[in-house]
């Protein structure tokens, strides 16, 4: 799946006036607008309950906004039905979670293969891609292991490999280092950097200022569902690569 390669000037993510209210309590997001260009690595920071995960879910098409529009890679995500949003996710989005969310009764390879199998990709190609990813992420020797036996850092690498399987236009990560110790956290940070260097657009939600500082080309801070601050990061983007794209 090769998404149209948008120029750096047309935003990959275009969020306008988005509002999200749950059944009770104050709105989780209030008239939030945000654009993210292809190739950016955006870190979303903010205190607990500020709406970071909510924003991520809207971008991933896992939930629908109460108002406003969400456009990703030219797709109006807020209008997608269940089936269409599933297709959108498997073709254009890769997701990484705090608690890995690997399927425990599948091997590492089978976990990584899942997205390709869901789109019905060719067997040989998919296996080659999985092997390549595992190799690239340094977990090839665990290819036939079960997730339960891996360390947290290794599991998160598997999750990242799975997320990259279909060459997504956008990689979403919610607290990717949240469940990891310092050393493993550093590994993942490096991995994200590498991927972004290779041209992968990344949106990551985190509490981890070190992670944001090291990886983000731009940082957005949410407070009570609004963007409180939008600052360019310290890192600069670099050229494309063979693996991510």
């Amino acid at each position: 799946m090769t998404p149209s390669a948008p120029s750096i000037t047309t935003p990959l993510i275009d969020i306008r006036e988005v509002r999200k209210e749950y059944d009770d309590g104050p709105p989780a997001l209030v008239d939030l607008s945000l654009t993210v260009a292809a190739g950016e690595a955006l870190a979303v920071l903010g205190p607990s309950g500020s709406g970071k995960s909510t924003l991520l879910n809207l971008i991933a098409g896992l939930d629908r906004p109460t108002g406003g529009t969400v456009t990703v890679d030219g797709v109006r995500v807020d209008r997608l039905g269940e089936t269409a949003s599933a297709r959108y996710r498997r073709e254009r989005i890769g997701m990484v979670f705090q608690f890995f969310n690997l399927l425990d009764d599948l091997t590492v390879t089978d976990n990584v293969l899942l997205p390709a199998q869901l789109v019905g990709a060719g067997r040989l190609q998919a296996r080659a891609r999985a092997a390549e990813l595992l190799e690239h992420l340094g977990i090839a020797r665990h290819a036939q292991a079960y997730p339960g036996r891996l360390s947290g850092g290794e599991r998160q690498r598997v999750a990242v490999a799975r997320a990259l399987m279909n060459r997504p236009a956008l990689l979403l990560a919610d607290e990717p280092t949240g469940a990891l110790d310092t050393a493993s956290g550093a590994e993942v940070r490096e991995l994200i950097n590498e991927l972004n260097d290779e041209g992968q657009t990344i949106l990551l939600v985190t509490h981890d200022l070190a992670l944001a500082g090291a990886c983000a080309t731009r940082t957005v801070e949410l407070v009570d569902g609004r963007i409180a601050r939008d600052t360019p990061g310290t890192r600069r983007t670099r050229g494309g690569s063979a693996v991510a794209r």
Partner: protein
Amino acid sequence: MSALGRVVRAGVARRRVQTLVMVLTTMLSVTASIAAGGLIVASTDPFDHAFARQHGAHLAARFDGREASPGQIAATAHAASVTAAAGPFAVASASPRFEAPAGLPAGTGPALDIAGRADAGGPADRLELVTGHWLTGPGQIVLAAGDGDEAGPDALIGTRLSFPGLPGTPRLTVVGEARSVGRTADAWVVPAQIAALTPAGGTPSYEMLYRFAHAGSSAQISRDRAAVAAAVPAGSMSGAQSYLTVRAEVNRQTATFVPFILAFGVLGLVLSVLIIGIVVSGAVTAGTRRIGVLKALGLTPAQVGRAYVAQAVVPAAAGALLGVALGNLVSVPLLHQADTAYGAVSPVVAWWIDLLVPAGMLVLVVASALAPALRAAGLRTVQALAVGRTPRAGRGRTAARVAGRLPVPRAVGLGLAGPFARPARSATTWAAVALGAAGVTFAFGLATSLNRVQDGLNQNTPGQVQVTTLRRPDGGAPPNPPATAGSSATGSAAPGSGTATAGTATGNGHPGQADPAAVGRAIAAQPGTRAYFGTSFDQAHFAGVAGAVQLVAYQGDSSWGTYQMVGGHWFTGPGQAVVGHGFLTAAGARVGDTVTLVGDGRSTRVRIVGEALITGDDGKRVLTDARTLTAAGLRASPDTFSVELADGTDRATYLKTLDAALEPLGAQAGATVGGLSSTVVAIDAMAGSLTLLLIVVTGLGVLTTVVLDTRERVHDLGVLKALGMAPRQTAVMVVTSAGWIGAVAGLVGVPAGMALHARVLPVMAGAAGTRIPRADLAVYHAPQIACLALAGLLVATAGALLPATWAARTRTATALRTE
């Protein structure tokens, strides 16, 4: 409220789906078990139960009114060992003509034994009203509820009976149907009516019914009978019927049903137990992580165990109560069917079943809940807490790996591997579906075989037209053809009830019979006759065989109208015979053996060349060429002719002209009626109801398991959906999981059902005194087997469909938050 109580209440209230599933499951299991148990109990000794309930008469004696006065007869109630007596009731025997209500053909029935009886109750032989009401005055008649009421129980109510053979042609209206357990009469009228039903100058006759202190054996009954006979003038007791005779008949009838009812009942019970086990232990296992939390908070393992058992028992008790109500409701039609079959069943479920079943189910629930609860409580807290995150370490991995390699869409592959993640539960579900499939397969085979047997039995009355040469003494219409298929399977043994086999005189022509040769010539001369042969029905004796044997002698070419054969072949000439299984058993003979027919001081040897499908006469029937008898100097004169019409002949016209030609000879022609044995009808109906029940229980069992599974895997489902699994793919995955269990279950269940069929049918047939032709047993062929195997898949898929839609609709964001 204690901390523990709070935990239980929260557990029941918060986990609504699981609680609902538990209520539903217990309800269903209790319903099915009550229905199954009720039927099994109703099928054990129904006669004895009915006999006790109705204070049945041990002896029904008849007295000649000219020899003994009613006073003398009444005094027999004081004979030694009589504990209760009813009567004397004046009795009359008369042949009614039915004046048809809407739609039914008018016709003359066999002679009825009618007793004049004011009261349905009394000290002995209390009558149970089946439908309508008891007599309120003259002009009314209550009929004995028969086992041949295919038209429905109410069909006869309101029918007018007239008695053309009696002076003034009395008319009576049927107001009700009642049942006497000892079959002491065919009908009842008020005593004042009897005089009008007795022909001028006819013998007054009385019936007296007795209960004795000791009546367990025929010997005791004989002594009791002698004591009664001694109390009236010698020779005035004209006959007496022991309840043991009727009991044997009913028990034989019941024995035909018991094997398949037991088969279904046991299937239903095991199914219920399995499903309760799956659901309860599944619900508790799902709570393992919560158990860890509770223990972390300081609950002891014992407290945890109690909390979880209580959590299971509260909804189970509610379900059990609902199940008792529903079970009794479902049992009403089932017991009614059983009643039609045995003629002696209580219409309600035995009270102790209503107590035993729910109690047993609750014990089962406690046991099923306790084991996993204690196991969870015994886990170290850390482990229990970890269960939610990394469950089922190592389980089903090989399956997942294999399924991942299969060339099928990934959703299907995941579905195929699904059952292996919970092997115990999947195995139980599998067993439940397999039992269901076995039940359906068995029911299909049963119905198909029985319909073939029915066709075979109908073959025993061949040809489109039957001609009878017998005249009734009252000048009325002919009696029933002696071997109509319909009555043969269930033939009632009512004492002296006009339906006894015609032609009890040994070997020779009957008084009042038309000349068979002339009748034969008339049939042959009739245009439209293609073929015909005559048959005579007589009692005969064979050397080494106790009791009389029904002997059917064929005159003419019978090769076009043979019985269905079980083994060997139809006779091809004199000296050969085809027999029923009962005869072979009684004679200790096999096909190919030779037996000796004895009569009138002569004897002749007959070789058995075949065994035929015969359910009447306990299978003690011998069919042979009439020349076998004439060669031995015995006479055989046909009392019935079976006629096959030429193609294109209109039967109605043919009958009219033939009847006109036969009228002066004193013979009558009638259309052959394809009988439908009430036994077959009743078995079909019951098998149908029971199969439906099994299917529903199986389907709901699958539903509840899949609901549990889906809820447990909601987190995994969320992950898959986040990775882009579409709702349809999710549904496909869930349905595949269940469907594949169903498919494999079908592969085992269908052969099991076939094996059950192969075992149970011969037992049922044995009880009916026959064997079943192999062709009637071979009902499973490739297409049928394929369809039945698919049934398991279908039931499982249907059960999974609803939870699959739920799974597909699970909100991903919510699912991912679930731990």
